[in-house]
């Protein structure tokens, strides 16, 4: 049974001003963990950041909330790319309040996927309980 779903899309261009100085960007550091930042640097920050932002927004929505109405920290939601994002091999890590909220709904399976083109990134999440 589907207990939650969330989808988010963003224009990739909107992130470009935060990527020119990726290492020092306050914006990037507010949202992403050091693990995520290291991962993004390994591959392609211009692609990883929009996808990862969409992932977090989609997860907020799947849990029925936004970050200002849930108490979930952006860093409670991590996405680690195992290969270049074009390969779509990634791991999702959920902690803190988000993990508690998932536990409250029976720790559903997190089914996730993303797509992107030159202009946009989109991430979808379905929370499914057997």
């Amino acid at each position: 049974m589907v207990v939650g779903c969330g989808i988010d899309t963003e224009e990739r261009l909107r992130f470009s001003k935060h990527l020119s100085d990726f290492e020092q960007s306050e914006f990037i550091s507010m949202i992403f963990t050091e693990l995520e930042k290291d991962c993004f640097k390994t591959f392609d920050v211009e692609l990883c950041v929009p996808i990862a932002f969409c992932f977090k927004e989609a997860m907020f929505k799947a849990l029925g909330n936004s970050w200002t109405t849930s108490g979930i920290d952006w860093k409670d939601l991590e996405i680690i790319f195992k290969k270049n994002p074009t390969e779509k091999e990634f791991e999702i890590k959920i902690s803190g309040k988000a993990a508690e909220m998932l536990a409250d709904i029976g720790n559903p399976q997190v089914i996730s996927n993303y797509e992107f083109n030159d202009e946009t990134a989109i991430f979808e999440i379905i929370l499914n309980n057997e």
Partner: protein
Amino acid sequence: MAVITEDIKKEVRDIVLDFFAEECEVEKSEINDTTHIFNDLEGDSLMFLELIEIFKKKYNLNIDLKTIGKYSLKHPVRTIGELINMQILIVEHENNIINLD
């Protein structure tokens, strides 16, 4: 804790209005305290985060998104006026904003 003067209040207001006027491509004069950020301006999380970044840099603030998120749970921000008030409190109290009623 910073002392909030009338000049700082005006500065915060101007930063917020200038930001949304530019981002949402509307005249600054069209934005007031009752303007709904999401319904009227089509604002979104990304804008909200960018605005927080601007204030963190300008006032060298020690404020975490986690704190703002928890504060917003009790004090939802939907209008420009509510956002300005929250930003003033953040400038004044930084992470201690969470201890306010």
